[in-house]
């Protein structure tokens, strides 16, 4: 592994790879950097109570030893003279059961290890995470991101249900966001993906803040659309070809990251779903025929769901009232 320092875990200076990288520096700078390496070692290694660690070690070993003994074939039990044979059989059964339990545990462990990592932002909240390659992701309320534990080894692939903003670190391996109907491929850039499969008008919307990305349908990769900074595009659920959107797209698409709520031309049903996720409230619409009606709502910094509902109703001639756990939008004339 580290053939140059087989004898020591704390090599005298930086590892050879680091020295090699530093070779491009001026000699004085290089010396200063190496000295910094030493300084860090002298002053920064946190040294908590070694005695406490030894005590913890004893506690752990006691536990491990017990576990090992439980697993190892137990020495033949000292059977009392009058012990009936049935007891022995019971012990065998118990031992077999234990072995089966251990095998099951190992199996479950391996199974869980194979499962993808899943991160979900709860309703009413957003969630930030850093992927193993250092890329940052911010999930909008209710969105779910999945990736394999092997992420980054050959490819950087994540699966998104919902909306998220990505700041991808540059790397040779392409970074791919798979949605229910499409795939966004990038090298190192910042962009937003909105892909709610259960929206009224489901689509994968992509808005690029910096860099370039490629958007393509899952099964029609040839009709890809390449987007640059400031551009946005939509891949509708049943479409094979992404379509470019106008410039407003970007600002509206990124509004959620700063607490904004902006939809310029979306079905009421899509907007109420977003309200439900963002503010963790129930939003009903009566009658259902209103769900398809297009609405526009541009709120920079709304205080809560009610402020948005009030605006939507005011501009579109609807009304709303509180119901248990949330609100209902209705048509006042129909009352």
């Amino acid at each position, binding site marked *: 592994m580290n053939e140059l320092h087989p004898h020591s875990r704390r090599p005298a200076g930086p590892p050879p*790879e*680091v020295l090699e990288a530093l070779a491009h520096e001026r000699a004085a700078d290089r010396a200063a950097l190496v000295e910094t390496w030493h*300084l860090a070692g*002298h002053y*920064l*290694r946190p*040294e908590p109570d070694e005695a*406490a660690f030894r005590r913890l070690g004893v506690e752990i070993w006691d536990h491990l030893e017990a576990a090992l003994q439980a697993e190892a074939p137990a020495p033949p039990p000292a059977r009392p003279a009058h012990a009936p044979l049935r007891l022995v059989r019971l012990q065998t059964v118990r031992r077999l059961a234990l072995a089966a339990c251990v095998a099951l*545990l190992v199996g479950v462990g391996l199974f869980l290890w194979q499962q993808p990592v899943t991160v979900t932002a709860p309703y009413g909240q957003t969630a930030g995470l850093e992927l193993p390659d250092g890329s940052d992701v911010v999930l909008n309320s209710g969105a779910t991101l999945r990736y394999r534990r092997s992420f980054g*080894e050959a490819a950087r692939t994540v699966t998104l249900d919902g909306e998220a903003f990505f700041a991808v670190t540059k790397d040779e391996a392409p970074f791919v966001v798979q949605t229910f109907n499409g795939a966004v491929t990038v090298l190192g850039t910042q962009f937003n993906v909105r892909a709610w499969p259960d929206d009224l008008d489901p689509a994968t919307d992509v808005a690029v803040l910096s860099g370039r990305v490629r958007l393509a349908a899952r099964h029609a990769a040839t009709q890809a659309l390449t987007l640059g900074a400031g551009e946005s595009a939509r891949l509708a659920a049943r479409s094979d070809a992404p379509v470019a959107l106008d410039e407003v797209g970007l600002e509206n698409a990124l509004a959620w990251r700063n607490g904004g709520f902006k939809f310029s031309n979306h079905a009421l049903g899509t907007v109420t779903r977003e309200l439900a996720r963002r503010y963790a409230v129930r939003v009903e619409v009566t009658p259902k025929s209103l769900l398809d009606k297009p609405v526009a709502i541009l709120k920079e910094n709304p205080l809560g769901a009610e402020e948005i509902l009030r605006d939507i109703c005011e501009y579109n001639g609807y009304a709303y009232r509180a119901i248990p756990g949330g609100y209902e939008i209705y048509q006042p004339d129909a009352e």
Partner: protein
Amino acid sequence: MLNPPANQAAPLPSDDSFAQWSRRLQSSDQRAFSELFEAMHTVLLRYAWRFTGEQEGARDIVQDAFLKLWQIRQEIDPKRSLKALLYTMVRNLALNHRRAAQHTNGLFPEDDLHDLAPPADQTVEAVLLQQRLRRFIQEMPERRREAFMLSRFEGLSHEEIAQVMNLTPRTVNTHIVLALKDLRKRLGALEPDRTT
């Protein structure tokens, strides 16, 4: 000019020892398991402690890691680094633990800055330098700090760090070189006349 810390930890076992333990563990050798535990539990406890900031959490993490290692002993690949495997398991368990505890301080818990009183015989200047270095390291991006600390304080090779952090060795190298330059730049900005 600078005194090394008094309590220098014992050197880690050689890569050969780890390779032998791998093979013996595969054949369910409990002695090997016990030797490995003896050699590694203190450094792994310290490593886990950096994530948890408290001892009970670190104990549970290291205990679970060794239990799991024993359970998967037959799947151990002697060609891969057992040391890196141990660090990987401790790291994953520690990250889960941190997530569960909603403890968002990250590596190098905040307490470090205050808890560890400097030895009495150090000059004011040395204490200040120590505090600055701690703060600079604390303020590095999390991944960079982690790579730097694994390299500098755990003595892992770049390939082992790559395995533990799920990165390419090249990226690890970049992280460490950048960390070093960042530290140097910030130290230099404070003390422009101390360049050698």
